[in-house]
């Protein structure tokens, strides 16, 4: 392990009078906005990331997650608002990578540089002892290929090398942008364990994803964004409660057209999830059974679904995304015609 005691300087400053509050914030984002020309990538975003917990930063592709994380790290300048670590901007931190470790998409390595030389150049630049190079390579499982040139690395190996770069300074805050990309199932499992371990050390972890299902077993809290705006910040437990109360019916039928025509006359929301399958929101078998019989619709399958977390996530972000179906995380989506409206 590192010969250096963990530095708590950045986040420690927050507790006034030396009295630690129970969950001090490691990261505060306040009214953060970013415009790229006419495009409002992030708008009035406010959330906090507490120490010792894993916060999932969730939203569909193109919802402003990456821009937000890059603003946090001083790579993208904010149009308005602040993003701070214990009250200080990233650019104002001394040796920032000793406090904040980041794994970002579209970061790259010089292809002819060896993995350990990449890490050494970062360590030297940030005044980190070179012994950490070996340690972090070992930690991410790359010690056997440290002497290999990065140009020969697979996507998963590059992702691990990025993680090693983030960990070099033994930071107390980790920011990970879609870190599971390129990892195989074992790699993803390893990443989950690793993230939980970091939180158990009291570190704050902010990890983005466009899939809640990928994060369900990892995160404590969720910050859900869509179209650059905050949809919800809550705990995973709270989100699960919402999921439990949301019910729906999954129906497989050879007569999709007749069923949708029949549904048009009743006030329910539905969406088609496959060629022969519909999901009807907030419906019960007690209502749908007689309804199908009345319209004489053949059914192959009738499933009463308790909503999953993913469904809650989709429905939360769906409303924001209705104008732009291309941004949907997955599945064809369509709201039912207005009840009683024209068919």
């Amino acid at each position, binding site marked *: 392990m590192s010969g250096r005691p963990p530095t708590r300087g950045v986040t420690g400053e927050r507790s006034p009078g030396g009295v630690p509050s129970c969950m001090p914030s490691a990261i505060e984002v306040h009214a953060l906005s970013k415009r*790229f020309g006419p495009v409002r990538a992030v708008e009035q975003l406010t959330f906090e990331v507490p120490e010792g917990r894993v916060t999932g930063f969730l939203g569909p592709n193109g919802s402003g997650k*990456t*821009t937000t994380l*890059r603003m946090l*790290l*001083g*790579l*993208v*300048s904010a149009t308005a608002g602040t993003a701070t670590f214990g009250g200080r901007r*990233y*650019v104002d*931190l001394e040796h*920032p*990578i000793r406090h904040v470790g*980041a794994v*970002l998409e*579209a*970061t*790259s*390595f*010089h*292809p*002819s*540089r*060896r993995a350990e*030389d*990449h890490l*050494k*150049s*970062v360590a*030297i*630049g*940030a*005044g980190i002892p070179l012994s950490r190079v070996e340690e972090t390579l070992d930690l991410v499982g790359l010690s056997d290929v440290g002497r290999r040139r990065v140009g020969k690395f697979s996507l998963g190996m590059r992702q691990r090398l990025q993680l090693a*770069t983030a960990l070099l300074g033994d930071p107390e805050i980790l920011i990970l942008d879609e870190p599971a990309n390129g990892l195989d199932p074992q790699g993803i499992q390893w990443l989950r364990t690793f993230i939980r371990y970091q939180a158990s050390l009291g570190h704050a972890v902010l990890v983005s994803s466009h899939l809640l299902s990928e994060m369900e077993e990892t995160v404590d809290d969720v910050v859900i964004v869509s179209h650059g705006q905050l949809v919800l910040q809550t705990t995973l437990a709270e989100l699960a409660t919402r999921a439990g109360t949301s019910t729906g019916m999954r129906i497989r039928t050879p007569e999709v057209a007749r069923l949708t025509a029949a549904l048009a006359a009743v006030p329910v929301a539905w969406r088609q999830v496959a060629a022969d399958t519909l999901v009807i929101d907030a419906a019960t078998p007690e209502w749908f059974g007689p309804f199908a019989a009345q319209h004489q619709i053949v059914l192959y399958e009738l499933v009463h679904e308790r909503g999953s977390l993913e469904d809650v996530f989709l429905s939360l972000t769906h409303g924001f995304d209705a104008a732009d179906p291309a941004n949907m995380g997955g599945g064809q989506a369509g709201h039912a015609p207005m009840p009683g409206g024209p068919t």
Partner: protein
Amino acid sequence: MIAAIRSEWLKLRTTAVPWVLVGIALLINALLILVIFLSHDNGTSGPGGGGAFVSPGYTVPHTTQQLRNLVGSGFQGYILALLLGVLCITTEFRHKTVTTSFLVMPHRPRFVGGKLIFAAIAGAVLAVIMLVATVVGGGLTLAARGGSFSDMIHQLPAVAPGMILVFALFAILGVGIGSVLTNQVAALIVCLGWFIILEGILVQLVHSAEKWVPTGAATAAANLTRGRGSDFGLFNWWQGTLLMLAYGLVFAAVGSIILTRRDIT
């Protein structure tokens, strides 16, 4: 700043760039030395002929000016120092390693400053390498042809400091240009286009521009220890040095402002 310079050195030497540049530099240097000896041959010896046995007065450099030309035969390598400076910064953008560099050092003018100091040192080292190669290669050839090796060495103090200074100044200019034009290909085309074609045309058209263009300023700076004042209508050495430095630093300042405003996405 020491840490930044050590980090830059590691970054540079773990790519092919410095080794290719040094290789090209030595190759060109060898050719130029060859040209110097052939041009003093006065046509009295053919290839494979008995050149070494012809009267030394005609076949080998022996006047002060000839010996200085021999010692400084690698001077044109300043263009490689310029490329070294350009590559030092544009490679970061080409391979997107700049994201990591900015995470390590988020203050972007400081990032450019580190590159400037590092490139100046690297440029000076390139000059030293070329001087050593010239003294060894040119000196051996000279001695083999009956010339005086020690006479050549005596000209080293007059030539070497100016050459080292000029190489450092061109490397600084390279970083400055690279910080403005971060696209590697664009930066290289602009540099080569200016120094190989446009600058010459400009001087032909406007003679008074000669002392003001980078090559004119650098040539003036090269007179550091030659004990000469301004010649050929150029500035004296310190004026030339300041002008070259100004070119490099103005570009670097503009580049720092552009980079500070730039979003790395």
